[in-house]
């Protein structure tokens, strides 16, 4: 019976893995593995602890309504030490999964292959390509498009000109706050061409819901053609 319950709980973990977008950027690949491991570990803990709770509730339900006290035991030192150490081991293991992925995602590649300055404002975005002399200015009604080269590392330098926003590309599993007065830098290394929606993820006032953009990943040759065309225009 317990095994059937266990297989039921694997389903949400699998569904979770399916809900997480994959294979879009090198960085997303690293984070996707962290998601998968945490979802599996989380499902395991839920089955174990949730199963113990339900088992205890059902197996030890009162059979004699007159009973005032079932039994009086109230401690077991070895057991208590064991269930203090067990979660320490689990979270230590989870930290070992977390740390390298976090470093991989947050450390910048030097020198950057491509640079895009991104500025958030109420309620759209501006993308500036300093090397190519390209500026893409969006409005709430016509959201801008961020064009990135495939298989090259682009460093995004993010800021804001009014309140705090958050630059989120769900398919890249990544967001970062755009904070006035601060330039936040991070890398994207897209692995496949495609169009991916992007949104503001930090509440920024009335029309926060409409502060969207798209990301278009182009093969390197097409990216160069796009940039040349845009700078000429």
């Amino acid at each position, binding site marked *: 019976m317990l095994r059937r319950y266990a297989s039921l709980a694997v389903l949400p973990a699998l569904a979770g893995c399916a809900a997480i977008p994959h294979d879009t950027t090198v960085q997303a690949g690293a984070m996707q593995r962290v998601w998968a491991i*945490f979802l599996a570990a989380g499902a395991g803990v839920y089955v174990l602890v949730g199963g113990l*709770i339900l088992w205890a*509730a059902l197996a*030890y*339900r009162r059979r004699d309504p007159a009973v005032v006290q079932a039994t009086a*035991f109230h401690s077991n030192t070895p057991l*208590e030490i064991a269930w203090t150490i067990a979660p320490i081991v689990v979270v230590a293991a989870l930290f070992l999964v977390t740390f390298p992925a976090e470093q991989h*995602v947050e450390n910048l590649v030097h020198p950057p292959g491509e640079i895009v300055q991104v500025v958030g404002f109420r309620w759209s975005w501006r993308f500036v390509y300093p090397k190519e002399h390209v500026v893409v200015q969006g409005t709430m009604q016509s959201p801008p498009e961020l064009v990135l080269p495939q298989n090259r590392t682009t460093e995004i330098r993010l800021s804001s000109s009014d309140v705090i926003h958050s630059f989120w590309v769900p398919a890249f599993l990544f967001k970062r706050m755009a904070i006035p*007065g601060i330039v936040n830098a991070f890398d994207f290394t897209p692995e496949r061409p495609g169009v991916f929606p992007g949104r503001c993820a930090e509440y920024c006032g009335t029309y926060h819901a409409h502060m969207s953009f798209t990301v278009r990943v182009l093969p390197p040759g097409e990216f160069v053609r796009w940039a040349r065309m845009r700078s000429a225009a």
Partner: protein
Amino acid sequence: MSAVAAAGAPPRRLVKHGILAWLSTTNHKQIGILYICTTLFFFAIAGFLADVIRLQLAAPQQNIVGAHAYNEAFTLHGTTMIFLFIAPFGFGIANYLIPLQCGAADMAFPRLNAFGYWLFLFGGLTVFSGVFAAGGGASAGWYAYTPLSDIRVSSGVGQDLWFIGLTLTSISGILTAINFLVTPIVFRAPGMTMWRLPVFTWEMIATSLLILMAFPPLTAAFAMALMDRHANAHFFDPTRGGDPVLYQHTFWFFGHPEVYVMILPMFGVITEVIAVFSRKPVFGYTGLVLSGFAIAGLSMGVWAHHMFTTGAVNDPFFSAMSFLIAVPTGIKFFNWIGTMWRGALSFETPMLFAIGFLLNFLIGGITGVMVASPPIDFQANGSYFLVAHFHYTLGGGSMFAIFAALYFWFPKIWGVKLDERWGRFHFWTMFVGFNMTFVPMLFLGMMGMPRRVYTYPAIPGWADLNLVASIGTVLITISVAAFVWNVIVSSRKREALPDDPWGSAYTLEWATSSPPPELNFDALPPIRSKRPAFDLHHPELAHTSPP
């Protein structure tokens, strides 16, 4: 023995009644009742706002309430649930119980206690008064990040009233915490040693230490924000050398401990309920007490996990500290299961809510460890995954424990036992409705839906999941209505209750009449173990009580 004295006598009234008596009371039980009723009133408003939110989001591209009204609604929903319902409900139940559980006649500082309540009430009303101000109520979210909440962007008086009102409730919390800390240390009855205090009282001691450390920084943050708004202070203004990230630090330095101010009292409630309905002593008393302090201590060092995506904090440090909180929380879960193990469990409504709490809070805890990992938080932060996570801790956790507490102590406080059939209906509709509402949000967040949007595009899957969530909210609303109805019908059937209407309760409040007399005890029973009321009512089993 008050049980004998009370039998046959008419049910006793609490203390002096009448409007003036309530307005001028310094009695901890009346102040507790004032808190409980006030916070439930605020809960009803915040629940109504949740219905508005879910109505607006039931289908894509709707415009039922409009962007600005929606933003006011979720700001006031979060503000009310956190500052005016969950945390102060804990203060209310603690106000009622701490002196009773210690064997004291009242709090250490009764007038300070009353002052705290009135500051809280008028603080809450001040926040709400913003709704009627020019430009409407505050709409900068419940954490009111600058520069969004500064005078240039949020120019309305509503935002000022929000800061001022919450500063009042923050001061109220500090004053109340002093009472919760001093009373159990100084005013214990003979025989009630510290290591015999009920786990609930211990959790309130840990909570009070957290309040005293975390609330003053919040007061400072709000004072600075108000000075920025009206005195050109530029603390958080990046164009004048100020720093918006500093506001986040000061806010979350309060904000994360606040999470535990909302949950530690409820850990205490759950501990007492599970032990009573498992008909066993609390398992691992020392571990439960010490883990409460471990959680309190760790929670002071994790605030910046709310700021992983700022790029301005040491992500690995705050990630590791946050993971560690899973250890004392795990200890609590295992001790609760240990308390149930080999017990004789019955499932009266408080126990149903306690088990619902365990299953829901477990999801809150697991998703909490997930979002404490920066690579996961980079997706989850600001998304519906996070909304689901913290609702599993504060809704599925604290709110379920609050209803466990209401059903459990209702007979003690009002001398009325709530109806079991309506109680079961309340529990099951709330449990099913709650999970229908928040499981879809976990998936919506992973799929990329941001929180705090008044509308969303028709992306495949989003509409269905949002509709399921909205239907779940309808069920939750029905369950709360069933609770109100239960209180009404049960109050009509007033009958004299014994000191311990549950039959196996053990903490000291169950050794006095229901409701207790003005000074709590006509005569204190001898206190020779951790279970004075149990020893009194079941002397043949007294030798089995943990010393």
